[in-house]
């Protein structure tokens, strides 16, 4: 098949929206980091982010050309690769802020938990799409949960609570799109609630700490931010001050006092949105939202036009992954979601996250191209029969 045929069926609106987000993100990262005197160059972070974006784009385009349907055959390989990578992290991983997350590849810090997100979408979608009509529904649900639980739990004990949450959310979305019964959801959700209650409230009282205390602090601080203005609450407060003081048009790029004077913590990673809110105001926020809406709209469209359940599941999974991260990250900066360390897709600084998200877009493009090609062929067949 000719490359040109592929190129004709690319979803360019999606590509444009993603490119916009990546560029927008790099601008904000530059603003947040360029005045840091400890950097070898003001472009240090932007360059690294750009490199990750280029690497991710290459992989994205490669993936777009691959027929995604072939991935179904590799679901076990992918699954065990994920488990293996996460295990490697436990052995040789670099530690940061009390958790082991990275594998230092020399040129790149690979964060397997990020890659696990997209990997697990493919694995679970392949599993679900492969279930036969006669299979027991309860069995499907339980097996899916077991499948998902293994990497989720491993990521959780790294600990990377945020990614574990994303994996859980993606699993639920996939079950939802697959058509799992409502009663199953009810059971799952109530069990999760019970477990969380146990972990956060009950077990610490009797001395079993599953979450580290700082994690519980961060999880609960959004409920009462004034409780601890020196610690997590301080970060949240500074973030709200940054965003709130941006007002309609913002203080101007590079002019955010909260950002430039370092009152805002983690301003190029977890709290990058606060920088945007402060410097570019509500208008800048609206522009970012518009780009995300474009991505989500194109994603939804791809999920619907996909010829196969596998494609729809992957597209839906990717969509839920992106949406969940956007919601939790921004929600965290404005105090309506817990502080979990989930990056803002395409915008937060971080190579693994960038590559993963671009891989996801590559998958979406692959599904798009495939379904358009199918449409083409069917169209042609209809033409010839007529």
């Amino acid at each position, binding site marked *: 098949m000719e490359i040109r045929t592929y190129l004709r069926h690319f979803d360019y609106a999606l590509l444009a929206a993603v490119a916009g987000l990546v560029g927008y993100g790099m601008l904000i990262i530059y603003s947040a980091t360029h005045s840091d005197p400890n950097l070898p160059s003001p472009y240090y972070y932007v360059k690294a982010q750009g490199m990750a974006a280029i690497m991710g784009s290459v992989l994205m385009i490669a993936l777009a050309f691959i027929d995604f349907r072939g991935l179904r055959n590799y679901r076990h390989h992918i699954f065990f690769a994920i488990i293996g990578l996460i295990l490697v992290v436990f052995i040789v991983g670099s530690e940061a802020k009390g958790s082991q997350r990275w594998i230092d590849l020399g040129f790149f810090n690979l964060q397997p938990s990020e890659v696990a997100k997209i990997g697990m979408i493919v694995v679970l979608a392949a599993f679900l*799409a492969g279930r036969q009509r006669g299979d027991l529904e309860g069995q499907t649900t339980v097996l899916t949960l077991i499948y998902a639980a293994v990497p989720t739990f491993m990521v959780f004990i790294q600990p990377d609570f945020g990614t574990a949450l994303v994996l859980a959310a993606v699993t639920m979305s996939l079950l939802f799109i697959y058509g799992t019964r409502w009663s199953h959801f009810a059971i799952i959700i109530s069990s999760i609630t019970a477990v969380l209650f146990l972990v956060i409230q009950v077990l610490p009282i009797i001395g079993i700490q599953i979450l580290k205390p700082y994690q519980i602090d961060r999880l609960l601080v959004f409920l009462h931010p004034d409780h601890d203005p020196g610690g997590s609450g301080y970060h949240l407060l500074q973030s709200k001050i940054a965003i709130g*003081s941006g007002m309609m048009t913002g203080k101007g790029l590079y002019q955010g006092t909260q950002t430039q004077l370092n009152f805002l913590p983690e301003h190029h990673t977890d709290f990058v949105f606060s920088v945007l809110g402060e410097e570019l105001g509500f208008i800048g926020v609206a522009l970012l939202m518009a780009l995300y809406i474009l991505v989500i709209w194109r994603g*939804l469209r791809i*999920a619907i036009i*996909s010829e196969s359940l596998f494609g729809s599941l992957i597209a839906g999974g990717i969509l839920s992954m992106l949406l969940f991260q956007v919601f939790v990250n921004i*929600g965290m900066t404005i105090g*309506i979601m817990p502080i979990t360390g989930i990056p803002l897709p395409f915008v937060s600084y971080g190579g693994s996250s960038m590559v993963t998200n671009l891989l996801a877009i590559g998958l979406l493009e692959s599904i798009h191209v495939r379904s358009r090609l199918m449409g083409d062929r069917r169209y042609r067949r209809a033409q010839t029969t007529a």
Partner: protein
Amino acid sequence: MPSLLSSSSKKKNERKQPSVAMRVGIMGVMAILLLAILLFRIWFLQILSGDTYIAMAEDNRIRFIPEEAPRGIIYDRNRQPLVENRAGLAVTVFPAALKDPEKELAELSKVIQVPVEEIQKQLDLHKEDTYRSVVVKKDITPEMKSYLIERIPLYFPGVDIKKFPLRSYPLKTEGAHLLGHVGQIDEQELTEPRYVGYKLGDEIGKEGVEYEFDRFLKGVDGGSEVEVDAAGRPKVEVRSIKAQPGNNVVLTIDNKLQKATEDSLLYGIDLAHQKNYLAANGGAAVVMNPKNGEIYAMASWPNYDPTVWVGGVSDSAYQALNAEGANDPLLNRAIAGQYPPASTFKSVTAIAGLQDGIISPLSDFTCTGVWDVLSQPFKCWGSHGDVDLNRAITMSCDTYFYNVGYRFYKANSQGMQNWARTMGLGRETGIDLPGEAVGRIPDPEWKARVGETDIDRMWMPGNSVNMAIGQGDMLVTPIQLASVYSTIANGGRIVKPHTGLRVEDPVSDTPIAAYRPPDESTQLGISLENLRAVQGGLVGATAQGTTVGDTFVGFPIPFAGKTGTAQVAGKTDYAWYAAYAPANDPQVVVVVLIEQGGGGGAVAAPVARKILEAYFAAPVPAQPAAAAAGR
């Protein structure tokens, strides 16, 4: 092409159920809902509450760093600096930048050695001013500084070190009582009319000249608004107002004479010890111009090191100064010490007697050593035979003055009291220093008021007799006595003792205010003839063989002087000497008091001689009339 690209599905192509599209649609609705929640919340933050957050962001980044204006310099009359400023270092805290106030303040407290409660108190004073950094410790040591500087960015983001003008005393303890000290204004003081326009945390003069001329000495504080980063490091100065230093004050004091006076006073105490008056441990001396009231020197012992107040007095230092047995080093005895004037008062008794016609200069009384007109005998210190006024003063004959006092009593006259008051006793001299005591002039009305028994409440002949020799219940301060002898010296005018000469602009040094003598007539109406009679006695009293013994043998300048030896119940005698010189054209009055020093002639007079010698070795130059005649 790799197989993946072209692989058609090997599994049977499962059909999508129509419900998948519907569920994806539901996801779309969810997406819109979630993004709407975010946008709504962001709208609330940015558009509806933006102003609040703008203010909070400003509070974060802007810090007001007050710049305390240096106080004016205090000069002596020769423009020798007596009190200057030095650049000290102060630790400030910016409360809003503290992340964990309790912990950080506790740490800071250990470093700067100020109790946490003290730090908290300072912070509370400025609670309303959230963007102001508050001075919590003045005058830190270099060790504290280097320790803090290293740790501020990491551990003490709200703490800073800045320059802070502090008082310094080039002449060490010299003039400590006179000059006073500064301290932080307290809430009580803020309510006083004197301090209208002052603000919390201001440094004010607490004693002495610092207090009296505070309005002039105090400058106008400035400060700057500085943009700081999260670690408290200043980035840019947003706005600044320069502090204006206070005006300089030039005093009437002559620093060389001040030193000589203090040294002489100490010499006197030493002398008392040598003469076995071992309890002698306090005293005062005043040197003053009898014509215009300018104080040339003022000494008080024990003294203290004024640097203990710099940067705030420590509890231990303050307790030491006020300890029992420290003998009140903070008390300026020259203006606030009250003592029986003893024989120095005989000049006043004489003037009263002459003016009221009770005696004439030639009246004679016979002294046998004991005056026994009343049932209780009154002793004289010697047996002087026939005594006229001149001899009475010269020899300090008690019997003569017992007679004068008794005559006043018999005449039912309060002439002694009236003349004492007229000459400035029993009330403040009005010297421009705070804390002046008024002394006491006993009279029948006073006795009736304070007496505990009926007998006590009655004015007895013995009261008048005792008063005539300056004993009994009468009390005077050294400055009052200096004022009285000025009046005798200058021909009967009362002068107002003062220490302030003029106030100068700190930049141009031009006078902006100057001491202005009182407008009202100061002539007391003492006849010249009577005054001459007393003066003659006082001059005679400086000769060898009088009460001064041979103290003034070889002193080249004729002068006038009077000893006093005050009896105080339960104490050794207090030694007085009051003098003016030269006799014919008095330029200087010297009053010396030594607590429990014994005889005035033996202990106080030698001190006066030393002071007079110092004065005449280097006479104090008069100030140019132009400067003194200013506003």
